[in-house]
């Protein structure tokens, strides 16, 4: 196709603009990467705009030697694995009966789920509930509250409903019970939707920090995101408003070390990102939430 002069200018300007937008969006991240590889005395140098002249891994060596980092990594892995298992198992088990037209009261139950998306008690009663259940400082406080949510349930149930009924009917004729049909037929056929839900849930557990901040008081149970928050953000401010004065926590952290912490916490996301991006895009178009 031959382009007119006007079109060529349009295309060049458009490409230039999008390149500029992309670079602007990427630059803060690249800057932090460069910072994490710098020696502390190079930070103040006005030259350091991207990569240091003499890259060093010394900040990474320091951060990996930090005893809390290891605990925090373990805690985050633990909550992500348990959280994933809970979401996938409980939500799909609950969604399956609701996908069956003969299940009693199913439209009323679906309304209960949809309403929970519109209105909830907020953090104060939820905190008091978790406290009364004796779940403070246990992994269950991070795993159970999000195990069955309306959004995931509706997406999974809609997928189950789209499975042709004849497949299950013929299995029933062969004498298969509901559990068998569920595990042998429904779940294997639902792999695409379960993969999307698993990725969503995995990333959100990896990134979660608020629940851990209010439910886990012991620093041994600190998740990775909070470790980052404490070493980077709170150290930058000395204090966050409303939180108690705790001078022991306000220690001086060099900029390079903060940058290395950011990289260490986001590394797993960066590593899986190129592979999962496609799934997420598919997921967003699949997730039309209707009761």
């Amino acid at each position, binding site marked *: 196709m031959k382009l007119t002069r006007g079109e060529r200018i349009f295309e060049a300007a458009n490409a230039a603009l*999008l390149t500029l937008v992309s670079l602007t969006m990427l630059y803060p991240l690249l800057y932090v990467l460069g910072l994490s590889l710098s020696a502390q005395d190079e930070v103040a140098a006005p030259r350091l705009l991207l990569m240091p002249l003499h890259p060093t891994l010394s900040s990474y060596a320091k951060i990996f030697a930090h005893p809390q980092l290891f605990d925090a990594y373990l805690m985050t892995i633990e909550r992500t694995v348990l959280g994933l298992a809970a979401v996938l198992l409980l939500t799909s088990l*609950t969604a399956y009966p609701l996908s069956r037209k003969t299940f009693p009261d199913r439209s009323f139950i679906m309304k209960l789920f949809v309403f929970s998306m519109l209105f909830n008690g*907020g953090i*104060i009663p939820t905190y008091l509930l978790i406290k009364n259940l004796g779940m403070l400082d246990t992994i269950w406080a991070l795993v159970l509250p999000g195990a069955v949510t309306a959004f995931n349930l509706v997406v999974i149930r809609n997928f189950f409903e789209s499975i042709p009924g004849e497949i299950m009917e013929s299995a029933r004729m062969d004498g298969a019970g509901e559990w068998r049909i569920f595990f042998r037929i429904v779940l294997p056929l639902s792999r695409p939707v379960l993969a999307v839900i698993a990725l969503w849930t995995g990333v959100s557990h990896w990134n979660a920090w*608020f629940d851990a901040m209010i439910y886990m008081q012991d620093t041994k149970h600190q998740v990775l995101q909070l470790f980052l*928050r404490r070493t980077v953000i709170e150290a930058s401010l000395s204090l*966050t408003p409303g939180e108690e004065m705790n001078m022991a926590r306000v220690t001086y952290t060099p900029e390079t070390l903060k940058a290395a912490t950011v990289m260490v916490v986001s590394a797993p996301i960066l590593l899986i990102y190129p592979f999962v991006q496609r799934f997420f895009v598919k997921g967003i178009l699949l997730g039309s939430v*209707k009761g």
Partner: protein
Amino acid sequence: MARGDAELSGGHGYMQRQSAIRLRWRAYATHKQLVFMFLPGFLVFVLFSYVPLYGILIAFKHYQLLDGVWRSPWAGLEHFRRLFAGHAFNQALRNTTIIAVLKTLLTFPAPVILALLLNEIRFVRFRRMVQTVTYLPHFFSWVILAGILFSFLGSDGGFNKLLGLFGVEARVWLIEPAYFYAIVVITHIWQTIGWGSIVYFAALASVDPTLYEAAIADGASRWRRVWHISLPSIMPTVIIMFLLSIGHFLSVGFDQIYNLMTPPTSSVGEILDTYVLRRLLTMDYELGMASSLFNSGIGLVLVVIANRLVKLFDKEQGLW
């Protein structure tokens, strides 16, 4: 149906109701296996989504920890009166509204524009690259993004060094109230522009290509094609997304604000959500619950309105 029958038949009502219950019971009994599958997840859901609703009563009680919610004495609307008279709450309400308006006006159009521009790129590989880069911030938590920003916008940070090339004086940007809203809006665009564009980009992919061919035959320029074909074609999607966004107008992004806020910026940064959190941390449950209920009550009304408007616009759409 069964209940309606029972009410209609007057004198036999009791018997009918009994048999309706028995019918319902039998319906569950015949699905025993399904009921067992359903219950564990459903109970977890009810426990964490419905049991806390009971705690809303705290907003109307003089809550005594030892007595529990129910046995604590009633307070009527006293906490709400205190709430609306309080400076901190009114400040939070004002800040929330300002941020909500700014985000609606400035963040909302950004992904639409990005999708339109991306759609004009003919080199698929370049387009994919731009998409990969712009989606990325969506995958990071606000703790990570704020960590990056505190480094980047700090006194020795990259932003100051860039500005230094043009002779602009270095500042610690995040501790100055005057820049707080600008940073909030720009970084919000940073996080959401790529991800938000997916919906519009998908809508653009379904535009009938003959429309463009006809326009080319008529000698329409590229710009006119974007303006007169692409934009009107995705307008229904844009309108629906806009109406839906009214539903969470007051949720201005707790994660973002909380992680970007510093003591010097708290006067412009405190929002309703952070106000509730502070009440929780200081164990001032009654005031926090009153604020939280005010917030979710308005939220509910807005969602219902948004859903109505969406349905008026397109009967097929809407949340329920």
